């Protein structure tokens, strides 16, 4: 018999294998914080924010309670995607420094628990969104979860260096789901919002992957720098940035965002392009990592600024419309 306490045995199991080694049959020691971590709260916050913008800029009015309920469903759906992703990617997560403390590789949550949690949240969020908002929004949410958990996580991520280009669609859907929840349709405006996030994703993640190429290589993930090399990655980042910068201005050009957004998108897109160009020109010279870090950090600020300005501008317009003309609407 072991002289170790169950807890010590458990910890020792983790230390030996880097994965869960439960000392007692089927005893779950997962805490609340582990299930929260499974839902990738930082990703969820971005999803909620972009979905909120989709709801806000959509025409017509949506009851605040229904809007909140829809956002909650979209957030839980995103959490389900995160849990399913962590369930399937536990082997990769255990190898990479950035992810080895996630609940499954750290031994806090069993793979089966994560799978059950993810599937339950996925089904619940889709069904409730269908009942609260409409079937189109629910179908889009279901497709997004399927796209992220199956198409991206199980297939693309380990198969092609274009993984995050195609998989980026999953992260781009939330504003379209928000729009669909508010209107019951898919307008050109929501397609533009989708396209902005879609074309933003490759330069954002490839800037990160330039910094983590060795880890991706060790984990066997075919990220672009691992397969095509760093020069090709920097060139691709520049190409996508050249597509993204004008696309960012499209909401202003098409008239569903105002002047403040137009200025933010123009200046912000110019800075994005300048940082991508600097990264491209730096090559493998000293300062290359700093250039990649700068672009990665700025890309987050850029996307947040675009959507934040669009949201604030829209709310100001609605408020002024109510005050000056006595009309309401988004």
């Amino acid at each position, binding site marked *: 018999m072991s002289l170790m306490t169950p807890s010590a045995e458990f910890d020792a199991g983790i230390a030996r294998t880097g994965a869960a080694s439960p000392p007692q049959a089927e005893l779950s020691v997962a805490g609340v914080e582990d299930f929260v971590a499974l839902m990738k709260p930082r990703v969820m916050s971005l999803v909620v924010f972009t979905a909120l913008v989709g709801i806000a800029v959509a025409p017509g009015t949506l009851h605040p309670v*229904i809007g909140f309920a829809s956002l909650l469903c979209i957030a839980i759906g995103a959490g389900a995607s995160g849990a399913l992703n962590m369930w399937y990617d536990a082997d990769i997560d255990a190898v990479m420094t950035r992810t080895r403390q996630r609940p499954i590789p750290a031994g806090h949550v069993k793979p089966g628990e994560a799978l059950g949690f993810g599937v339950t949240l996925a089904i619940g969020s889709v069904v409730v969104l269908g009942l609260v908002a409409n079937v189109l929004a629910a179908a889009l949410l279901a497709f997004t979860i399927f796209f992220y958990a199956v198409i991206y996580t199980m297939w693309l991520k380990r198969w092609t260096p274009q993984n995050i280009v195609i998989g980026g669609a999953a992260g781009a859907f939330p504003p379209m789901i928000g729009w669909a929840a508010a209107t019951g349709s898919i307008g050109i405006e929501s397609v533009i919002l989708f396209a902005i996030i879609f074309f933003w994703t490759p330069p954002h993640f490839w800037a990160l992957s330039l910094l983590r190429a060795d880890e991706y290589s060790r984990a066997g993930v075919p990220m672009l720098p691992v397969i095509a090399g760093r020069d090709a990655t920097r060139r691709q980042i520049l190409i996508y940035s050249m597509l993204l910068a004008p696309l960012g201005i499209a909401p202003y050009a098409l008239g569903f965002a105002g002047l403040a957004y137009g200025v933010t998108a123009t200046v912000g897109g110019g800075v994005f392009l300048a940082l991508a160009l600097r990264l491209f020109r730096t090559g493998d010279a000293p300062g290359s990592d700093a250039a990649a870090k700068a672009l990665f950090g700025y890309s987050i600020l850029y996307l947040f600024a675009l959507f934040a300005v669009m949201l604030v501008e829209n709310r100001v317009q609605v408020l002024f419309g109510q005050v000056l003309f006595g009309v309401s609407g988004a």
Partner: protein
Amino acid sequence: MGDGENDPDDGITLTPEQIRRRRNRSIALALVLGALVLFFYVVTIVKLGPGVLNRPL
């Protein structure tokens, strides 16, 4: 049995940390279930509006 040894017949013995985690999880589950009840109630009232009382008996 001697100190520090676990007899399988004794069943599972939880450590204080495991007990704390499971207790917190149970409380969180109760709160989530309560919030869901409130959520469905409010959404039902909002969606049905005044019609919530206008049903044939």
